[in-house]
C-alpha cells in the first residue's frame, strides 16, 4: 500500500507490522502525553518534586538525552571537520538520533518550567552570567542546526524528491552542510559544557561545585568531553538495536569500529580527567568547605561509594578498555556491552550531578533529602522514548537513512 513511499532498492516489513508497532508504541506515547497535559493544566504539583528537589528526574533526563544526543555533533565534527569520510554511512542516523534527543530535551524543559508561557523570558531577559541561559540559547540554536541537517534527509523521500524544488533544496543543503555542521559543533561544545557548568558553578553546593578556569568550572569541560565520548556509543547502540529489530545489517563493521575506536579513546582520556577531577574535589575542594568525601556517600539509603564505582569503573574504565582494543570492538558481544556500559556511565554521571547535588545536606542540622518520581514524571520521561521509536520507525521506513543498506541487503526483484 505504501510501496511508492519506500526508498528504492530497500526491503521493508509489511505495512500491518509497521502499523502494529506504531500503535503499540503510540499507546505509550499517549500515556506520556496525558501526563504532560496534566502537568501543564494542573501544575507541577503533579510531580514529586519539592522545595528541596527543585531539579529532579526531568532535569536528569534532559542532561542525559543531550549527552546521548552528542553523537550527532561529534560524528558531524569528525566527518566534516576532521575528515573521517567513512562516517557518512552513519551520520544520517546520528543526526536523527540527535534530533530526537534534542527535541525531547526541549519538550521536557517546556513541561519542567513552572510558567511555560513565560519560557521566552530566558531569551528576552537573558542573564548572560547564568549557565542555564547559555544552555537555552545554544540548545535552541543547535536544535535548529539539527533540523537543518534532518531536512535534506526528509527531502530524499522518493516522492518528495520528485518535486524539483525540493530536490534542488536537498542538493544545495548537502552542498554547504559542512558549514552547518561546524556551527553545530561550535554550539555543542558550549551547551554540553554549560550543562556541566549548571552544577559546577553552584559554589554553595559542595557536592556539585568545582573550581575551574575563567568562568568555566571543570565540569564544563568534562561534560563536553563525556558527551563526545558517550554520544557516539549511543549512536552505535541504537544502530545495533535497529539492525536487530529490522533483522538487517545496515552499516558495515569498519564504520562502526572506527567510531567505536574514537569513542573508546575519548572515553579513556575523559575517565582519566574525571578521576583527577574527583580526586582533587575529594581531597581539596570539599574539605575546604568542611566536608570529607565520605560525607557525600554515607548516612543515606541510596548514595554510597557503589555509585562512584558504577560511574567511573563500570561505566568508564571498562567500556573504554574494551573499545580501544581491536578485539574488543570487533567482537559483537563486547562491543554491545561496552556501548551499554558507556551509556549507563554517562547517565549515572548526569544523575549524580543533578540529584545527588540536591540530596546532600549542606546545613549541618539537616539530613539527606530523598526523592522518588511520581507516575506523571515517569510517564513524561518515557514519552520521548516512545516518540523516538516512532520517529525512527517512520524515518527508517520511508527515508534512505543508511547508504550501505542496498549493498548489504540486495533486493532480488528491484524492478517491481
Amino acid at each position, binding site marked *: 500500500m505504501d510501496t511508492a513511499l519506500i526508498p528504492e532498492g530497500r526491503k521493508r516489513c509489511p505495512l500491518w507490522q509497521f502499523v502494529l508497532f506504531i500503535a503499540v508504541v503510540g499507546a505509550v506515547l499517549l500515556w506520556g502525553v496525558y501526563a504532560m497535559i496534566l502537568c501543564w493544566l494542573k*501544575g*507541577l*504539583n503533579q510531580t514529586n*518534586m*519539592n*522545595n*528541596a*528537589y*527543585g*531539579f529532579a528526574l526531568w532535569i536528569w533526563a534532559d542532561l542525559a538525552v543531550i549527552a546521548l544526543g552528542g553523537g550527532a555533533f561529534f560524528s558531524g565534527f569528525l566527518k566534516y571537520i576532521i575528515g573521517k569520510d567513512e562516517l557518512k554511512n552513519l551520520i544520517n542516523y546520528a543526526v536523527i538520533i540527535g534530533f530526537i534527543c534534542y527535541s525531547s530535551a526541549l519538550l521536557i524543559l517546556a513541561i*519542567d*518550567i*513552572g*510558567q*511555560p508561557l*513565560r*519560557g521566552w*523570558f*530566558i531569551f*528576552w*531577559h*537573558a*542573564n548572560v*552570567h*547564568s*549557565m*542555564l*541561559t547559555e544552555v*537555552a540559547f545554544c540548545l535552541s540554536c543547535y536544535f535548529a542546526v539539527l533540523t537543518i541537517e534532518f531536512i535534506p534527509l526528509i527531502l530524499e523521500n522518493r516522492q518528495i524528491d520528485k518535486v524539483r524544488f525540493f530536490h534542488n533544496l536537498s542538493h544545495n543543503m548537502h552542498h554547504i552542510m559542512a558549514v552547518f555542521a561546524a556551527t553545530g559543533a561550535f554550539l555543542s561544545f558550549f551547551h554540553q559544557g554549560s550543562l556541566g557548568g*549548571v*552544577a559546577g*558553578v*553552584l*559554589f*554553595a*553546593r*559542595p557536592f556539585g561545585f568545582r573550581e575551574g578556569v575563567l568562568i568555566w568550572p571543570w565540569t564544563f569541560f568534562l561534560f563536553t568531553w563525556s558527551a563526545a565520548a558517550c554520544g557516539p556509543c549511543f549512536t552505535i547502540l541504537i544502530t545495533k538495536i535497529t539492525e536487530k529489530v529490522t533483522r538487517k545489517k545496515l552499516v558495515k563493521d569498519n564504520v562502526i569500529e572506527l567510531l567505536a575506536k574514537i569513542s573508546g579513546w575519548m572515553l579513556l582520556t575523559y575517565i582519566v580527567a574525571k578521576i583527577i577531577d574527583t580526586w582533587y574535589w575529594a581531597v581539596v575542594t570539599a*574539605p*575546604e*568547605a*568542611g*566536608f*570529607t568525601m565520605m*560525607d557525600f556517600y554515607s548516612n543515606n539509603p541510596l548514595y554510597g561509594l557503589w555509585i562512584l564505582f558504577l560511574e567511573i569503573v563500570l561505566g568508564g574504565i571498562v567500556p573504554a578498555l574494551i573499545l580501544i582494543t581491536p578485539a574488543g570492538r570487533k567482537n559483537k558481544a563486547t562491543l554491545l556491552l561496552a556501548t551499554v556500559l558507556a551509556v549507563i556511565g554517562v547517565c549515572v554521571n548526569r544523575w549524580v550531578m543533578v540529584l545527588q*547535588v*540536591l540530596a546532600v545536606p*549542606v*546545613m*549541618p*542540622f*539537616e539530613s539527606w*533529602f530523598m526523592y522518588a518520581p511520581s507516575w506523571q514524571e515517569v510517564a513524561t520521561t518515557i514519552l520521548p522514548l516512545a516518540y523516538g521509536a516512532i520517529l525512527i520507525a517512520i524515518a527508517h521506513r520511508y527515508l534512505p537513512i543508511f547508504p550501505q543498506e542496498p549493498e548489504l541487503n540486495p533486493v532480488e526483484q528491484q524492478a517491481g
Partner: protein
Amino acid sequence: MKKAQEHTAPKKYGMVIDLDKCTGCGACMAACMAENNVPFREDETDKNLSITWLRVYKLTNGKKFPNADVCYLPRPCMHCEGHHGHSPCVSVCPATATDYSYDTGIVSQIYTRCFGCRYCMAACPYHVRYFNWWDPVWPEGMEKMLSPNVSVRTRGVVEKCSFCFHRYQIAMEKVRYEGRAELAEDEYQTACTQACPANAITFGDLNNHDHAVYKLKTHPDAFRLLERLGTNPKVYYISSREWVRRQGDNYLENEGKVVAKAH
C-alpha cells in the same frame, strides 16, 4: 526617586539573631506569613512543600539527659552578598528575575519575571527559596485581610523572604516626602523583628555605626551560617553555646574548636 537614592550612602541591611534568647515560639514565622501574604494549604504535613519565608529550625546537641540541649534557629533569607554581590542564587537566574541591590544589600525576587526554572532553589544551600507548587487559595473571607503592599504570587514561580522590602519602600517614601536624606533605624524594621517577644532579632544597616546590628555582628559569639562556602550572608547569629556555633557550619573532625571570626 532614583536621584534621591543616589544621594544616600549604600546600605547593607542585615539581621542579628540571638539564639540564646529565642524560645522557638514561632511568632516571627506567623508575622512573616501574615505580612507577606504567604500562601498555605489545608494540609501542611509535608514541610518540603510548605512555604515558610522564615523557618525556625530545632537544633539539638545530640546528648542524652541530663546533658541534652536544644536551640531554635530562625532562618530567613540570608541575602547573601557573596563576592561583590555574586550571591549563589542571583548569578544563576537565567531571566534576571532575582537581583542583588547594591543600595540596600537586599536580594529581590521579581515574581512576574520568574518563569519557574528553580535553578535558584538548587543554588541556595539555606533552602530559603520556595516554589509555588499550587495556586494560592485563601480561606473564605481571608482574601480581604491580605496586605495590599505585597503582591500575591501565582502558581509556578519562586518566592522568598524580602526583608519586608515593601516596608523599606514605604519608609523611604516618607523620608523623601520630608526631605530627609537618611532613614532612621526604627523607621524600617521587618515584621519578624517586631513580632519577636524575646527581642531575639535585631535588624538594621550593617554599615551604619549607629545601628545596633553594627556592634552586635562583632560580638565574640557571633557567627553566620555556612560562611565557609563563601556565600557572605547578612544574617548573623549569636550563641554562647559552642555546640550551637559549631552547627553553623561544616567542620572536619580535626578542625577543633570554632573560634568566632572578626568581621
